[in-house]
């Protein structure tokens, strides 16, 4: 593959060219209700060429590897159509690296019959408890091998193995329907699949509990988030805004997001980095061949860094951070998060709950989204807080806030960091990208809660 890439890179007139070729293999098993819904096995082979001429980008993706030379020409001529300024990319020393995948337990070593059998055991767990209306249960594993080379002498081979698991239980009472769900993933660890029993067995109980629970009255509350949902919160409420591609060409946003700006109290520390090992967002080189970093985003409440591609780093005069990622060869790399974490403080959960007369405690996640200024995220479970204690269950809520004021209102950080490795991130038509996020319990003053 190296010969193919290196020979295709030669003899062209462009400021920068890179070629990526991938081999993928995925297995999916899904059950809907008690029945198997689908089981399938897919393979893929394809690649892309990205070229830059005078600051303009061209990109050509393909499945037919024999066409690679003409795709290089195409990407360059497209770039030429665009470029009329100077190509600016952060400096990078050439790297030659062959990186083996991070494997704890390889799903490829497990026969399909065994994966199927394990899923049937989970199906029994979903249906062995109280009566539910239906359920959904899905498993997927993927093996992606990536071969990358660029015109500045970098060549890397990397591979990653992803394992994903989802389960949900749906309870119904006439026209009223509620569901409880979980999502979990791992980098290179099939063992994940052996560790979900208690969470899956709890789902039918939770769905029925939600059905019987009242809805919270919408409005502003003091909210305490568990580590999983707080991880989703940091991803949505701050992480996306720290992606430099949103900022670098918008002068007003650059003013707002100036390094040194205070976002929160001194107890607030946020980092992101693919260099943090063994998590779903971990890797060694990004999709521009840049080495992964660990980047401080907020240190003691102050903005100190952001996430970059080579282009955004050069144009903002900041250090590259190795955050250019793509979900697959069909897409060019864009600035993405990796593993995003609120660092732990000293408070216990009881400390955080103390003094809250009426508030909302939210656990687990269902989804989240951001527009940079505003963000929303939704809880998997919600409870009222009354007089400093977690009280009755209410239906899961959606929370919403303003990035700038909510971080100021984050006034308590727990001591119990946990990572959330479920779900995936979507941006610019590329979804889902494996990321992780993590946090201890946190407390937010005056957070907007949607409800009846």
């Amino acid at each position, binding site marked *: 593959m190296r010969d193919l890439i290196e020979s295709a890179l030669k003899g062209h007139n462009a400021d920068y060219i890179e070629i990526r070729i991938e081999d993928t293999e995925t297995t999916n098993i899904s059950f809907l209700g008690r029945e198997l819904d689908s089981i399938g096995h897919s393979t893929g082979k394809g690649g892309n060429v990205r070229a830059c001429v005078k600051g303009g980008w061209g990109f050509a993706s393909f499945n037919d590897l024999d066409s690679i030379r003409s795709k290089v020409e195409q990407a360059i001529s497209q770039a030429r159509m665009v470029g009329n300024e100077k190509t600016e990319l952060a400096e990078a020393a050439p790297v030659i690296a062959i990186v083996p995948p991070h494997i704890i337990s390889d799903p490829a070593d497990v026969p399909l019959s065994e994966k199927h059998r394990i899923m049937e055991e989970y199906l029994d767990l979903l249906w062995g408890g109280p009566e539910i209306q239906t359920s959904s249960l899905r498993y997927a594993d993927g093996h992606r091998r990536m071969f990358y080379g660029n015109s500045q002498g970098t060549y890397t081979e990397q591979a990653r193995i992803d394992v994903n698991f989802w389960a949900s239980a749906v309870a119904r009472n006439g026209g009223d329907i509620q569901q409880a769900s979980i999502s979990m993933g791992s980098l290179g660890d099939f063992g994940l699949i052996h560790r979900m029993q208690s969470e899956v067995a709890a789902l039918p109980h939770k769905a029925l509990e939600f059905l019987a629970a009242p809805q919270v009255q919408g409005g502003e509350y003091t909210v305490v988030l568990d580590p999983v949902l707080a991880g989703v919160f940091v991803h949505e409420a701050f992480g996306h805004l720290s992606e430099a591609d949103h900022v670098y060409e918008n002068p007003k946003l650059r003013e707002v997001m100036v390094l040194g700006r205070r976002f929160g109290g001194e107890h607030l520390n946020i980092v992101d980095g693919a260099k943090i090992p063994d998590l779903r967002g971990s890797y060694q080189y990004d999709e521009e061949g840049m080495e992964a970093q660990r980047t401080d985003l907020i240190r003691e409440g102050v903005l100190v860094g952001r996430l970059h591609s080579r282009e955004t780093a050069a144009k903002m005069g900041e250090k590259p951070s190795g955050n250019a990622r793509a979900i697959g060869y069909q897409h060019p790399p864009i600035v993405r998060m990796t593993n995003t974490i609120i660092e732990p403080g000293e408070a216990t959960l009881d400390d955080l709950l103390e003094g809250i007369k009426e508030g909302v405690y939210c656990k687990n996640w269902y989804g989240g989204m951001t527009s940079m200024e505003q963000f*929303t995220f939704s809880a998997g479970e919600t409870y009222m807080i009354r007089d400093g204690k977690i009280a009755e269950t209410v239906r899961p809520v959606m929370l919403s806030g303003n990035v700038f004021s909510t971080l100021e209102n984050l006034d308590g950080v727990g001591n119990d960091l946990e990572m959330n490795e479920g779900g995936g991130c979507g941006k610019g038509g590329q979804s889902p990208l494996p990321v992780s996020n993590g946090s201890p319990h946190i407390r937010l003053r005056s957070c907007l809660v949607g409800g009846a």
Partner: protein
Amino acid sequence: MLEDLLTQALKQADQAEIFQVSSLSTPISFEANRLKSVEARDSSGVALRIIKNGRIGFSSTTDMSDMDGLVARAVEMLPFGAKTSIDFPAASEYADVITFDQVTSDLKAEALVEAGSKLIDQLHADWPDIVWSAGVSKSVSTTTLLNSNGCHAQETTSAIGIGMEGTLVKDTDMLFVFEGQSTCRPTIDTDAIIASIERKLNWAEHVAPAPTGSIPVIFTPNAVAGLLLEPLLEGFNGRNIVQSSSPLIEKLGTLVLDPRLSVWDDPTLPFIPGSGAFDGEGIPSSRLPLIKQGVIANFIYDLQTATQAGARSTGNAHRGLGSQPSPDTSVIVIDPGDTSFADMIAGYPKALLVESFLGAGQGNTLGGGFSANVLLGYAVENGKIIGRVKDTMVAGNVYTILKDIDAMGSELEWVDGSLHTPAISCTGVSVSSKA
């Protein structure tokens, strides 16, 4: 070659089906008021579905040199595959559904760059404080479907899409406006895009306090698409019918919603990117009523869910390369009412007009629930739009609010090339906001 694959697959199965897609798309993107990149995405692949002893085997690949592997992997799935009693359809007569235009297909990247640049330049000149980005894309894709019962169907669709986004930042206050179009024809109505953006920006000039409580909410066509459609349509999906997880089971033929609400799925409309003569399993497309004057008229099925429900496929099998077919709607059309948009707004002493959302679809959509942050919405006071609201959430249930619609708009608009709808206003929607 596909015939050979079919023959090869049939040696190990009772029935076989081949689904092949090849597409070429040319996305052009503009960032920060200027051209950023030109791309060409060339993709092709083939999926094989086989049935043996009442079980389904499936595999797909983008490696066209590995047809033996494709068959072997599908066969390997058979012992575990989903139980089925479907028969792949025989050859059918398909209606003429026009989704291809030679001029669109022939459009060069340069022409798309020019169209996008013209629009961006004008927007930038009219609103210099706003940072504009845009995507213009042309795609041509061919779908081929072949099965062992005689179906051999092929269709080519050409489409262009354009999406504009403007971001206005004033310290930490941000305003986002979007506008888009999608069509099989080679022309983009740039005047309509600019007029719509201008209207939204004028309304948004001032920030106004949000009306809160259980109040009337006016949903623009974009808001109908963005917030109401998913929870409404989920109840019609054959998968949820078969699982009895739809609130609409046993409601077929019953008046459930407002008699002014009629909703169709119509993939036979010409020049609409979501249209097509046949579905992902070769079943002919048809104009299917889902809600007829408030009465639940039909659910949507593919072959598998139809046999499970004891019904017939409604030609709603949708599929991508790597996954098996699943029922979904194609092109949704909602009949207009008789209230003009201007009259609708003029009728309210206090209401919220909503356009776009953040986080829609995270709520309990299966039960008809919706809950979202209002990304762009306006306060209406004494029949007039007084400004844009901030930090506001809406929540409710489509089965409740669409049971008694307050006003049905008379003007239809296309949204995303897949929904044709008027504005709809409903009372009793929960709106909460930061004080």
